[in-house]
């Protein structure tokens, strides 16, 4: 990054790209050229900054100015004002919702203050397509250090001492896993990166691969050296075209630089990486399924042992780690395990990346030290609940996890605490729910997912989850009975105890944890035939309050079934027979005259 006096970083993550960030770059380039400044200012397309809620993001260095919700039309002003005249474009700066002050330095934003970026260290900082930029940020120094000055055993010892645990959900100690894989002798061994990211509503791994693919390439190579493997594979979702493209480029470039392939950095060590595409089956995130899928088969799990470390891909010793786990490795090698163990809690070291979404003001990608509380995540970083609503629950661990409530807000987040609270760390999806979200419907949503994704191999999961879903459907449509609650609990226990793999074993968690914390909501659906959050359609009726309706006719125009009638300037009425409960009218009425109950 040397010859330029200024850099303009534009987010090229999936979220911002969808919001036209390519066009912003194009326009910035055009206006920069018009000012004859292309040799002084460099425009870079980076990975995700994390602040997706207010994307597209543009950041200007060296002064660290952080612009939000930039539109292609803003390019001219940014160049002419900020770049040429050195005057910040106030209207595009982030406005602190509490003080209403504009903040220009991202370091001063609440969203970033409590974050520590290790796995995401380069996301939103470098151009992921440019190997030199990765190198300029100490990239490939760790592999250099490992190959020239460390034995495989020493590498494993450092990872063990760091306390790094798997970020794919299980939290298994990474160093120990490497040690197992290193103990099995074979002429062919594999390092596999699990980039299947199946939790719907989570995009941690995707953002790392899109924003900093070389960190994963480097880490896999280090792992190969440590366990004595020369073959790397990344199992990546076919639904992630941009991540695939950037990762493939990173692999090709690394090979060209002699950082992959034969005799890496003249050390005599050989290692190369190939991609294998997933095809949309959640169970393939489970490592035995993943291996079957890589072999071109149906991705059904098999019982362990044997563990992949002994007999994995094509029956060879195989070490499977998650993308984020790998992304931590090069830094640990360079900065040492002591540095890493200073971050986090006693048994969970380092940081965790979360995809924060749902009823929260700042949807985005965050990385916080283990031990941060949910309150800090939701209120300080996440900016609180959207629309000033009341917080109700947060789901971690996706369809395998559970919900945490008000009373858990001050629990420090780490692997063991979340398990103790009936949820789990999971891969990092964090869905925030407000008073408007029905917990029974939420449990139903996750069960629908599990039913669809059950591979069908074992009965408790295939049949049991379907039965759970049927009961939840009865309850949300007002046909529930009190006996159903006990039946749910009993079924959940059976499935948990008897399903073959993690998918089935964890599928009841959303039901169990919502039952535990919100049994009253279940009862309201069953006994009062009422959905307290006003979400379950079958239990709702829409009607118009005559004393509030001024007869503006706004609602009649949006109603898709012409269910609303009334004369202009006179109170309107909804025909409950015709109403399909789409909710469009409520959103249009500016007088609060339409209610659902």
């Amino acid at each position, binding site marked *: 990054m040397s010859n330029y006096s200024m850099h303009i970083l534009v987010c090229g*993550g*999936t*979220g911002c790209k*969808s*919001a036209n960030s390519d066009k912003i770059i194009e326009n910035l380039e055009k206006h920069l050229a018009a000012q004859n400044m292309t040799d002084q200012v460099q425009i870079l397309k980076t990975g995700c900054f994390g602040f*997706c*809620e207010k*994307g597209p993001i543009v950041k200007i260095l060296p002064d660290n100015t952080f612009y939000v919700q930039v539109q292609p039309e803003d390019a001219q002003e940014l160049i002419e004002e900020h770049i040429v005249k050195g005057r910040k474009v106030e209207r595009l700066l982030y406005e602190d919702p509490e003080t209403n002050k504009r903040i220009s330095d991202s370091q001063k934003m609440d969203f970033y203050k409590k974050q520590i970026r290790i796995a995401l260290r380069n996301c939103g900082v470098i151009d992921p397509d440019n190997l030199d930029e990765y190198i300029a940020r100490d990239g490939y120094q760790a592999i250099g250090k490992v190959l020239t000055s460390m034995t495989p055993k020493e590498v494993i010892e450092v990872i063990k001492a760091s306390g790094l645990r798997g970020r794919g959900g299980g939290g298994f100690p990474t160093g120990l896993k490497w040690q197992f894989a290193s103990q099995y002798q074979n002429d062919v061994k594999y390092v596999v990166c699990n980039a299947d990211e199946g*939790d*719907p*509503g*989570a*995009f941690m791994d*995707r*953002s790392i691969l899109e924003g900093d693919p070389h960190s994963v390439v480097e880490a896999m190579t280090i792992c190969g050296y440590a366990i004595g493997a020369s073959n790397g594979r990344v199992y990546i979702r*076919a*639904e*992630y075209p941009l991540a695939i493209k950037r990762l493939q480029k990173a692999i090709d470039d690394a090979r060209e630089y002699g950082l992959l392939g034969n005799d890496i950095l003249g050390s005599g060590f050989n290692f190369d990486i190939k991609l*294998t*595409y*997933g*095809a*949309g*089956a959640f169970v393939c995130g489970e490592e035995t399924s993943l291996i079957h*899928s*890589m*072999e*071109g*088969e*149906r*991705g059904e799990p098999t019982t362990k042992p044997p563990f992949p470390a002994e007999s994995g891909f*094509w029956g060879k010793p195989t070490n499977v780690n998650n993308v984020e786990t790998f992304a931590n490795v090069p830094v640990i090698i360079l900065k040492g395990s002591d540095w890493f163990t200073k971050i986090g809690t006693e048994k969970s070291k380092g940081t965790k990346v979360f*995809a924060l*979404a*749902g*009823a929260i003001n700042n*949807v*985005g990608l965050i990385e916080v030290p283990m031990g941060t509380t949910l309150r800090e995540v939701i209120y300080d970083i996440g900016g609180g609940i959207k629309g000033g609503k009341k917080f109700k629950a947060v*789901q971690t661990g*996706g369809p395998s996890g559970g919900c945490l409530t008000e009373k858990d807000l001050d629990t420090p987040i780490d692997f063991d605490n979340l398990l103790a609270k009936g949820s789990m760390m999971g891969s990092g*999806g964090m*869905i925030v*729910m407000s008073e408007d*979200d029905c917990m029974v419907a939420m449990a139903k*949503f996750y069960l629908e997912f599990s039913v*669809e994704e059950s*591979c069908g191999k074992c009965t408790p999961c295939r049949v049991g989850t379907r039965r759970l879903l049927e009961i939840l459907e009865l309850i949300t449509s007002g046909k529930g009975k009190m006996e159903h609650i006990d039946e749910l609990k009993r079924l959940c226990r059976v499935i948990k105890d008897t399903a073959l793999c993690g998918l089935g074993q964890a599928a009841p968690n959303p039901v169990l944890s919502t039952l535990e914390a919100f049994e009253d909501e279940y009862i309201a659906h069953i006994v009062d035939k009422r959905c307290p959050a006003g979400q379950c359609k079958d239990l709702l009726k829409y009607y118009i309050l005559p004393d509030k309706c001024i007869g503006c006719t706004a609602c009649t125009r*949006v109603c*898709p079934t012409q269910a609303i009638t009334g004369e202009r300037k006179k109170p309107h009425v909804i025909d409950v027979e015709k109403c*399909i409960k*789409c*909710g*469009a009218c409520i*959103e*249009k009425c500016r007088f609060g005259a339409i209610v659902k109950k």
Partner: protein
Amino acid sequence: MAELKNEQFNELEQFIDSMSSTKGELIRVLHKAQEIFGYLPKEVQKFVAKKLHVSTAKVFGVVSFYSFFTMTPRGEHNIAICLGTACYVRGAEKVLDAFKRELNINTGETTKDGKFSITGVRCVGACGLAPVVMVGEKVYGRVTPDMVKDILEEYKD
């Protein structure tokens, strides 16, 4: 319905022949086949089975296992509605309902004129824009049910 063309089979054949080994490559071949044909009808599955020297039943077993593979042709414009958790919590179901109503088809179906189809997908990684809808490659963010008509209008002719 789109016809299966000879040159499409030729392209697939060339792809398979260019592989140094087909061991374990069934899924990769099916990805390519779907890219070429747009879907994986019986004829294509049979062709793949023959080329890779595996049974048709095995190919079918794999195709039916993975949701990314489809055996019915999609519409000229496929409307992929994200039903990931972040989108669900921000109202994706209502958006889906609106599309279904406007087009008078269900998820997984194609309109009679072959123009539109609807599929549900999971997290496209743009949760900040939830609820998200993709028509072909184009991403629409913060979609509300009353935007549905206008979105469809863009593709009417």
